């Protein structure tokens, strides 16, 4: 396992929205998915995950409902709302512009 990176708050929101864009998922699943896809680089602490989920829910970008998980246990599933999908597109665009800009700056300094 490589070194883990703490996520910025805005970044975590983006990752959650992106993860939920694939399918509705419960909190644990979201954390696992982010960890897996990032090759265990991005570790999501519960102390930030659940507050983020509640924040996003309050803003109306994700919805939640209780249903039964794969092994028949009650779990709270989160899903992307229409507003959330729009927000995801917006944030993805911003992210790309931001990372491109940072990359530019960094390259300049190296060169």
């Amino acid at each position, binding site marked *: 396992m490589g070194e883990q990176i703490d996520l910025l708050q805005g970044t975590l929101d983006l990752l959650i929205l992106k993860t939920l864009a694939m399918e509705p998922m419960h909190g644990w699943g979201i954390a696992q998915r982010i960890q897996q896809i990032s090759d265990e680089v991005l570790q999501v602490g*519960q*102390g930030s995950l659940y507050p983020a989920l509640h924040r996003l829910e309050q803003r109306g970008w994700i919805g939640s409902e209780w249903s039964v998980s794969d092994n028949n246990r009650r779990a*709270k599933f989160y899903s992307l709302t229409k507003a959330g999908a729009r927000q995801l597109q917006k944030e993805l665009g911003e992210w790309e512009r931001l990372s491109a800009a940072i990359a530019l700056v960094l390259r300049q300094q190296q060169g």
Partner: protein
Amino acid sequence: MKLFKKLRARFIKPKEQDLNDEMRFHLEKEIEANVAGGMNAEEARRRALIDFGGVQQAREAVHRVSARNVLESSLQDIRFGVRMLRKSPSFTAIAVGILALGIGANTAIFSAVNAVLFARWSIRNQQQLVAVSEPTGADKGVTLVSVPNFEDYRRQQTTFEQLSLWLGQSINLTGQERPDRLIGAFVSDNYFEMLGVKAGAGRTFLPGDDMPGANPVAVVTHKVWQTRFGGDSGLVGRQITLNNEPYTVVGILPQDLTLPFPSEVFVPAHYYTSYKVERQDKAFLLFGRIKDGTTRNQATTDLNTIAQRLVREYPKENAGIHVEIAGVQELLTQDVRTPLLALLGAVAMVLLIVCANIANLVLARGVARQREVAVRSALGAGRGRLVRQFLSESTLVAAAGGISGILLAHLLLKALQRVSPLDFPISDTAVLDLRVLAFTAGISVLTGVLFGVAPAVRFSRVNLSSALSGGSRTTGYAARDWVRSAFVVCQVAISLALLVTAGLLVRSFHGLLTMNPGFTSNHLLTMEYRLPRTKYQTGVAQSNFHRAIVSRVQQVPGVVSAAVVQSLPFSGNWDQVRLELPGRPISAGDDGFNALCDLASPEYFSTVGIPLIEGRVFSAHDDDKGAGVAIISQSFARKYFPDKDPLGSEVKIKDSHLLALAGNQATKRATIVGVVGSAKQRNVREELQPQIYFSYAQSPNIFGTLVVRTAVEPMGLSNAVRQAVWSVDKDQPVWKVRTVDFLIERDTAPDRFAMIMMSALSALALILSALGTYGMLSNAVQQRAREIGVRMALGATRSNVLKLVLLRGLTLIGAGVALGLLGAIASARLISTLLYNVSPGDITAFALAVAVMVLVGMLASYLPARRATRVDPLVALRDE
């Protein structure tokens, strides 16, 4: 309540439940994953918990996201607070008890202050109601105004809704079963309009009622209607006999009406027996209602413009006057304002001591709670949350204290009304109204914050590792001890200041009790009467009546002697006269020489015990046929005849109502025939004034005060004396039947009240600060038991240990006394106007207060010190 539960179920409970379920689900998934990864169940669970981080922290982080959780966590705090308080019932009981005492005392005194200083009358915008005075030069206080001046003000002013004359004087009511005296008021016909008061039945006065020649009309209060006329439904329109003349009752005031001057019957001003439309005849008080939106300054300027014109046009009668305006409320409360505010300040100080005491209790308890706080903080409770938790606990205590305080205040208020003097206007109206309840709620919350903040801040900053590792004895000891010492010092300081204040008031009151009024006040019975002018028209007739009752009363068994005087000392009656003295010409515009003046029958001086110094007292020959005579007091002789024997000198009086008979009417001269001892007249605090007496028979008056020296208990003769008066005239009412000792008591009652209250409060403060010192030292001894044990093991003797603790206590008390002396000097200055013959820096009061404080402080330190000497080194050290 039901709705609240529903709301809670809807918003709060499921959310909390949700969150818990979600967390548990997450944890279980984590454990499963760990097991799947090859760990055993125990290890999987442990790892999962570690990965999960603080459950509490996660939950709180979620809570912080959502605003509605403030309510929820507050409810949690309160629930937790209640639980904690129930776990330590003795702390809770002591804290709530002390607090109830403090808040109760504050509430009681505040409600008295509220009822007196902010009395509500049944009057629209009562703060617009003012008294108008025409002082000359340095005169202070309310002065009387002449009818013509009033009419000029009334016509020319632009800033008042109404200006109205008022004069209070008793009015005889006859034609009923028993002759009776009513508290009367002679007022302009716009008086009720000025107050904004309407009649309950009939009408109040109409414009024109106060014109000479109008039908005589009267307005009575609801109470008079009920008590004197048996609630007669036909009273409006009926004729009644007032001062021996028929008046038609035109109106009855509403029930429960409260007015600033509580008269029983009102009649138009021009029926006042000495009503004169002359500028030099200043007889009435002038009241006014300032227009809404107009300030008192504007109104004063307005009337002063008119006054200046009056001074120019009538320089003789209006020499040197200007107009001053005072709010009626301020005027009525000016005498009691300082004592009441002093008490309010003192009781607030007691509350501060209470706060310091409870804060110290909380701090002491906090030592035991340090572990608990550390555990909660380790479990992830944020510092803000901890502070909030502590504050909600102290607020709970404060709320409980506040509620018990209100109950206690109710009882205290009853006691307060009992010790409050008769004329001291704490009436039944001193109730716990909304303003008072708001005040109590306010101070309860404030005290909760006051005694909660220090411990809260202190304990939320625990050092986790040391607190959890079990070293509770030493953690934060020094810093907390410093705070607690400061609290004790402040308590002692405040107590000392209150003790000094109380001591000064006690000394002052003692001075009042032992003051010499200039006559012998015990065994004197007195009553007043006013003859109807229509029945006793001539001065001789009036004079004959006075003489007749004196001789009848003197025959009553038990009576030593009797006399008639116009203004008995301390009765509230007094008169002043302006004189010309021989060989001392008065320049133009000068007032002449002033003296208190009284009318007396020949027996007066021997009856009350004013000693004759020189010459003679009045005799039966000093009547309308004799030449005018006067008797002066020693103070008069000293002031106006410093180097000359006054006997045989002649004074000329400048006032019209004296020496109004026969030959003396023209000359207005009287020869000084005697010098008597000086006596106090207006009140017991008065400096001796120059006094001059004239013979009743030469300056007859319809008003008289009968004064009787008795061989037995004076009030026991009141009926016999009254019967003797009625044997002269069965229709003549007498009133104000009382003893001279009662008059003195009444006069000193506010002082007595202030003294009792201040003593009670300072005693309370003393006890509380002694408890505070004791508690603080006991706790310190407990905490330092190990240190003391070590000292003793190393050879310290019991007396060394005793000294150690005593010294510590005395240091605190010494610091408190030093600080308190500064406070005492300041507070003594604040109450200096209440003191009689005692300087605010009175050494005796200061020394006594310091002695009491130090003694009590030593006792409070000695008990814990003695306990410290009983520390068993073995037991104390075994813990190690």
